[in-house]
């Protein structure tokens, strides 16, 4: 049980450092499209983070929030893509 917990802590640390890297691209990114890529990556990372929070707290209801994000996260990216394509 102890080694499992250590492995999960390492996985959580990797996910949090991934959030930091994507945030750096979001702040620096020279164009709007770079920022949208970072936004998409952050939503996908947060799905994994929510699943991990659900496992640590042991409640299955937390997975529903990740489910909502999995359904709704791509609509924002599509709207922004149509916006920078000057169409919508």
């Amino acid at each position, binding site marked *: 049980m102890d080694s499992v917990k250590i492995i999960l802590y390492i996985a959580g640390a990797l996910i949090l450092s991934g959030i930091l890297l994507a945030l750096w691209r979001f702040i620096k990114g020279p164009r709007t499209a770079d920022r949208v890529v970072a936004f*998409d990556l952050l939503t996908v990372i947060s799905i994994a983070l929510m*699943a991990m929070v659900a496992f640590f707290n042991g409640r299955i209801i937390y997975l529903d929030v990740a*489910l909502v994000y999995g359904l709704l996260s791509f609509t924002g990216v599509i709207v922004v*893509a149509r916006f920078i394509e000057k169409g919508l």
Partner: protein
Amino acid sequence: MELQLLIGSLVTLAGSVFIFLGALGIVRMPDLYNRIQAGTKASTLGTILSVAGIGIMNPDWAGKVFILIAFVMMTNPVSSHTLARAAHHIGIALSKKTVVDKLKEDGPEENKKED
């Protein structure tokens, strides 16, 4: 039971390694299209693996985990495809090392007719 927990945590660790590599690629890659590829493919696989590892560790959650994997597999490539197409449409410059550009070779008129 102990072995099941160990396998699930290792799968989750592999998924988080893929997520970290995707985030590293989004910082290091030279132009937008490489960033889209690194940030979408690697992070999709990483999210699927880490959620599946949690499903292996907790077999009661397998149904909801399967639905979550299906949603991520359906929605994430759609958004990345739309974004890459829009970026090519407004003419964001490719990297200097690009060898081939099939979408430009096909001609912009045919692409506009399909809309």
